[in-house]
């Protein structure tokens, strides 16, 4: 670990279809809220880190130029980082390294996506190589379904049990989203609704899958000295971990997902976490698909391999459980992709500083945030805590 770094401000837009604003206006909306939350002005910012999905999603290349004014980056150093779905964690880590190195005291990190403007699945197919994987990809649902099927098979998980657990995750998150003023999908869902929703790619159904959203998220990172001076309740970054895998899907085992497992382990090591289920108070797991969320629980050591459905059905990860996961409703209810991974960090920071409103987990002191990107290729984890 380098020097101590804190999250001292967060800002989110209202997420959903935001054709009431242009893209730079949407970005500014999140930045403005974060600056007010941190109690700083644009001139205080020493550097900006930003990122989105691939430019095919945006229709405009190099969006850090397009958003220059909204990002308060004019006259300042700027970095653009992208890693598909894990972009939000990648930019947070980049900002963290910048401040932890001691070369800046205040860095603004901003992730954004306007998914209603482009074609999400068409963009996603361009992440695959054109010769070997693209011809057989059925958007993100196809890839994640292959992974879920492999996981169920490897651990002999009965299909009915996995279905039941996935439905409960869907119900829990949709309920949570009703408590989140920024969430996109706000509907009451029943177990029966989830189990009988239209099939996307079997066994994944419509209510197991995230929406496409417009939205942005901004986070202000500060050095220890700065944070102590201007922020009453900073959220301290306790650990960061990021791992990648081989490019081709068939070259690593996605049912035990090495990158997710090792990214979490690396972050736990730094944070001194030995028993995550016991020590963490809340987790914001990147969860575009209910089945995949269960694989993450296992990779992060929340439960033994192959046992996620048992733990889910016991209520371990529900709001009243031992480790509430995604009290924001998560990616399942809100997914402006370039922002989604950073929203996980912003939500985790609000939880450990007691600023999560109706979705607050009582007394939360230590939280995990996470994002996944590429064709199941990258995973990033950031742990934040109330204490330095």
């Amino acid at each position: 670990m380098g020097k101590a770094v804190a999250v001292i401000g967060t800002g989110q837009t209202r997420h959903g279809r935001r054709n009431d604003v242009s893209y730079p206006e949407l970005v500014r909306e999140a930045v403005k809220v974060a600056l007010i939350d941190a109690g700083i002005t644009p001139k205080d910012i020493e550097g900006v880190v930003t990122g989105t999905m691939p430019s095919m999603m945006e229709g405009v290349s190099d969006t850090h130029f397009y958003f220059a004014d909204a990002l308060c980056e004019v006259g300042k150093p700027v970095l653009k980082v992208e890693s598909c779905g894990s972009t939000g964690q990648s930019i947070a880590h980049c900002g963290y390294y910048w401040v932890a190195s001691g070369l800046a005291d205040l860095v603004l990190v901003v992730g954004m996506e306007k998914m209603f403007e482009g074609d999400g699945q068409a963009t996603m197919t361009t992440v695959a190589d054109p010769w070997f994987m693209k011809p057989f990809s059925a958007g993100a649902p196809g890839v994640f379904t292959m992974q879920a099927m492999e996981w169920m098979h490897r651990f002999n998980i009965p299909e009915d049990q996995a279905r039941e657990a996935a439905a409960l995750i869907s119900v829990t998150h949709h309920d949570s989203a009703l408590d989140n003023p920024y969430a996109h999908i706000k509907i009451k869902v029943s177990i029966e609704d989830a189990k009988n929703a239209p099939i996307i790619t079997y066994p994944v159904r419509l209510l197991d899958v995230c929406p496409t959203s417009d939205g942005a998220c901004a986070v202000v990172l500060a050095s220890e000295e700065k944070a102590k001076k201007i922020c009453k309740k900073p959220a301290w970054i306790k650990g960061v971990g990021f791992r990648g895998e081989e490019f081709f899907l068939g070259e690593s085992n996605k049912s035990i997902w090495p990158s997710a497992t090792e990214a979490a382990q690396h972050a736990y090591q730094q944070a001194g976490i030995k028993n995550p289920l016991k020590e963490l108070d809340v987790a914001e797991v990147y969860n575009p698909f209910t089945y995949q969320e269960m694989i993450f629980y296992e990779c992060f050591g929340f439960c033994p391999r192959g046992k996620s459905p048992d733990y889910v059905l016991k209520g371990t990860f529900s709001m009243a459980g031992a480790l509430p996961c995604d009290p924001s409703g998560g990616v399942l209810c809100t997914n402006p992709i370039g922002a989604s991974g950073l929203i996980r960090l912003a939500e985790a920071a609000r939880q450990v500083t007691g600023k999560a409103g109706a979705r607050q987990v009582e007394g939360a002191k230590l939280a995990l945030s996470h994002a996944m990107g590429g064709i199941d290729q990258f995973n990033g984890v950031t742990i934040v805590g109330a204490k330095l």
Partner: protein
Amino acid sequence: MAEVKPKEKPRELIAQVSVPYEMALGRNWHRFFESLKEEKIMGTQCRTCNRVFVPPRSFCPRCFEDNDQWVEVGQEGTIETWCYSNLMFYGQTLKPPFIAVQVHLDGTDVGFQHRIAGFDLSDFEKVRALVKFGGRVRVVWNPEKKGNIFDIDYFELVPG
């Protein structure tokens, strides 16, 4: 102050970005696709970890050594995982419904992406009764060779 709702919904610009590319296969993948024309599946092997790769890798992704050793691999394999897709996405090559599959080809150490076909795919329940984890599949060659991945037309289920 109450928010003033504008009377008109702001317009959207309908746009399309189209960019042509000439993407180089490199000698390695060029050789692979040339071999498909002769109904051979060629992989490369790492001399350090001995793993055999299809798609062939010109270097081992883990050892970072040159994979200069070519081996012909089997045309049968085992189903590692699969997915039934019945949705059409923009830019998708295959028309739904189709079955995407990850096959562990005999004589290789990785999973290979392709499709399973050769029977009626319209009813998922019938498909599910036929396609099994660990089930065997075999290459069906496309009589018309173009030097691309569809020279392997599809994988058929091997009874048993």
